[in-house]
């Protein structure tokens, strides 16, 4: 292990809590996000436990409403949105473009504190009795009919939103202004491109959520009626504004996942990503189209048939850039020297599950199908295939892939492969039955259901248990590896990114001196030359 690195550069709790180092802030985020993931996961566990039997016997229907709301709010706003960008992205973007830090280190730290404040307020609201609006805060339910802690939760989401805005803003400025000499836009790793696209969504979308929540709050506190039909307001306006953010938000969640997959697939096929430019622009295209599809969440809410038609068409267009990515990753694999390290297993999981999730999204984007399937478990399964099967797999791929860089140590290889397989099996067992349940007509958000749905629900709950094991395993062995893992060395995967050309864990300002990018991204020949050169030098 290198003697001097960012972890041992300073000591004491304060040196972490007041740090400006993007790598340390990434570690802070990684710890806090893991905590919230398991809190959100615990709610999911209780939901699955209730659904083991057809009778609503474990919890009352009110409690059940709170369980799925708090599962959704925590997972969406405190896990999925910041998951990859705030942790892995925060750690890597400056290193990948050869910069010493993000452009605004203090704002980066502020963004973590806002995240913690949001999390604390949310947990307080939950301790005081929770909230049961669903994660969508739908009006007038949220503004007039519920006496739970809607306002407190809305404040928490508002603050979490600003945390996300600041992360996105920091990334955009950094990518524009801080690239090292020679790092042109088309020499950047695709990881950076995808984060750039996601950041645009964060910066443009999140403020709309903020003003919407302000209006919901004002409606609850002062009784203003912007969304109140009894005062001439329009509840549908709320949905338009809410989904104007919350649909792009799913691309905020998935694009950084795609970012990870590009790096992993290229490294373990030892080939440049096929169609680099197409993959780079497909990220931007997803961000762009992502802003014009929000109404597909409202097809059954009484919107005009003509606008529904347009939004349906636009929704299907998003499938094009997503497919460009999947196809290009497949072509990257073609004739590559593929190896099956743990991150690659997760990446394969991502590609399969995301494809299923994405294709069922096309079902839901078509008008007639949507009316049949919306508000059923089909939606739940679709969303979890994209977000859990896609994003969470990518998150785990990324954590494993860059773990040696972050900590300087390797994780245990066979145990982690086992975890990847367990996660994949558990995931499919949990959510595949939900597609069938939804197709058969089981509505979501009820704690009781007819007898005939039980077998599939039991399968799903059993799968959730397996999945839980799959998630606990990495926490345990990654913690173990901090002390007992093998020393990783600078570049254990022989990857080409600039982050791999410096020591592990890196120095406080990443590089002894600012690198000069004199080759294309994913140039494995350059890496070979460099390695040979170093060997002869040492020899």
């Amino acid at each position, binding site marked *: 292990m290198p003697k001097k690195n960012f972890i041992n550069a300073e000591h004491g709790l304060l040196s972490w809590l007041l740090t400006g180092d993007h790598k340390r802030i990434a570690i802070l985020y990684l710890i806090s996000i893991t905590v919230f993931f398991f809190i959100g996961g615990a709610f999911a566990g209780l939901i699955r436990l209730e659904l083991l039997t057809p009778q609503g016997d474990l919890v009352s229907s009110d409690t059940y409403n709170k369980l799925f709301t708090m599962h959704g709010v925590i997972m969406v706003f405190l896990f999925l949105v910041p998951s990859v960008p705030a942790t892995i992205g925060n750690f890597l973007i400056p290193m990948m473009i050869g910069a010493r830090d993000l452009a605004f280190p203090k*704002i980066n730290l502020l963004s973590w504190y806002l995240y913690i404040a949001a999390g604390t307020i949310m947990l307080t609201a939950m301790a005081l009795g929770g909230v049961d609006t669903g994660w969508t805060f739908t009006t007038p339910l949220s503004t007039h009919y519920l006496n739970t802690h809607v306002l407190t939760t809305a404040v928490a989401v508002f603050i979490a939103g600003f945390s996300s805005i600041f992360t996105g803003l920091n990334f955009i400025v950094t990518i524009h202004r801080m690239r090292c000499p020679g790092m042109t836009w088309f020499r950047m790793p695709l990881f950076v491109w995808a984060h750039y696209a996601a950041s645009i969504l964060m910066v443009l979308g999140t403020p709309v959520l903020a*003003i919407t929540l302000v*209006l919901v709050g004002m409606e609850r506190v002062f009784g203003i009626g912007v969304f109140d039909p009894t005062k001439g307001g329009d509840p549908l306006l709320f949905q338009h*504004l809410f989904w104007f953010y919350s649909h792009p938000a799913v691309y905020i969640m998935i694009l950084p996942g795609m970012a990870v997959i590009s790096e992993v697939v290229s490294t373990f096929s030892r080939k440049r990503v096929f169609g680099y430019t197409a993959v780079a622009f497909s990220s931007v295209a997803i961000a762009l189209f992502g802003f014009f599809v929000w109404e597909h969440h409202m097809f059954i809410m009484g919107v005009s048939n003509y606008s529904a038609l347009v939004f349906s068409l636009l929704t299907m267009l998003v499938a094009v850039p997503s497919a460009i990515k999947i196809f290009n990753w497949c072509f990257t694999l073609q004739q590559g020297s593929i190896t099956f390290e743990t991150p690659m297993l997760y990446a394969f999981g991502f590609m399969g599950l995301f494809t299923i999730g994405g294709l069922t999204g096309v079902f839901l984007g078509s008008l007639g199908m949507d009316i049949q399937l919306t508000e059923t478990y089909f939606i739940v399964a679709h969303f979890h295939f994209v977000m859990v099967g896609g994003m969470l797999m990518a998150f785990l791929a990324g954590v494993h892939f860059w773990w040696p860089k972050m900590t300087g140590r390797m994780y245990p290889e066979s145990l982690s492969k086992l975890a990847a397989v367990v996660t994949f099996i558990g995931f499919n067992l949990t959510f595949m039955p939900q597609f069938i349940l939804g197709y058969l007509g089981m509505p979501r958000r009820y704690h009781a259901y007819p007898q005939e749905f039980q077998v599939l629900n039991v399968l799903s709950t059993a799968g959730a248990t397996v999945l839980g094991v799959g998630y606990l395993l990495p926490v345990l062995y990654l913690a173990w590896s901090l002390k007992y893992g093998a020393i990783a060395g600078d570049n254990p995967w022989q990857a080409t990114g600039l982050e791999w050309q410096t020591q592990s864990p890196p120095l406080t300002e990443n590089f002894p001196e600012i690198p000069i990018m004199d080759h294309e991204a994913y140039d494995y020949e350059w890496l070979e030359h460099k390695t040979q050169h170093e060997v002869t030098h040492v020899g």
Partner: protein
Amino acid sequence: MDSAIANPHLDHDAAEHEHIVLPQHRHHFATEEQQREAGSFGMWLFLLTEIMFFGGLFFAYLLYRNWYYDAFVAASNQLSIPLGASNTAILITSGFFMALAVWAAEVRKKTLLVIFLIFTIVFGLAFLGIKYVEYHEKYEKHHIPGANFDVSEFINPSAYGLNEKPLPPDAAQKTQMFFFLYFAMTGMHALHMIIGIGLLFWLLARAQRGDFTNGYVAPIENFGLYWHFVDIVWLFLFPLLYLINRHPLAH
């Protein structure tokens, strides 16, 4: 920046030559120029988020104005054009002094900078004072939305000595929507003014210490962008709320 990237050696040399003079220079930036560009770019992006933030309100205004046109016209007639117009002039003047302050910082004239910042604050406060007068009038007339909201002036305008078209009761109720949006939009704007004036006091204190007249003008410049943005929001609010389609009786 981009052209410098295209020629890496040029940029590299520049970085070595222009070696760091100011204490404000942060170490993770290669050059001071890079730091300044990053700061102003960050500010522009922040203003973009502000546009999206206000955009939600403007969208709601657009929708309800079309739905409840008569009520919006009647309610809009309640606003005072002289007060609104003088506030517009006052705010533009405040923005003018802010622009002068940026200039003063750039030419390193400390006394002028301090004076211009004070004028910026004074005119900003004057704006808020007039806004208070307007809000107070609405309070006295029971035009603040809520339980005490009074529609009689819109149902029977002649009894109040107004030359207006009387509204049927259900349309008159919709004037409340105008006032929701009026208070939400001008209130959100005023909140930005208050935050801005708070920041101005902080900048003023630092300007007196001479922090911005040694070549380091980024905070003044970036705050100037914010202050002008707040002006521009008002320049949209004023016509939308006060001016357009008043007095349809004249047709």
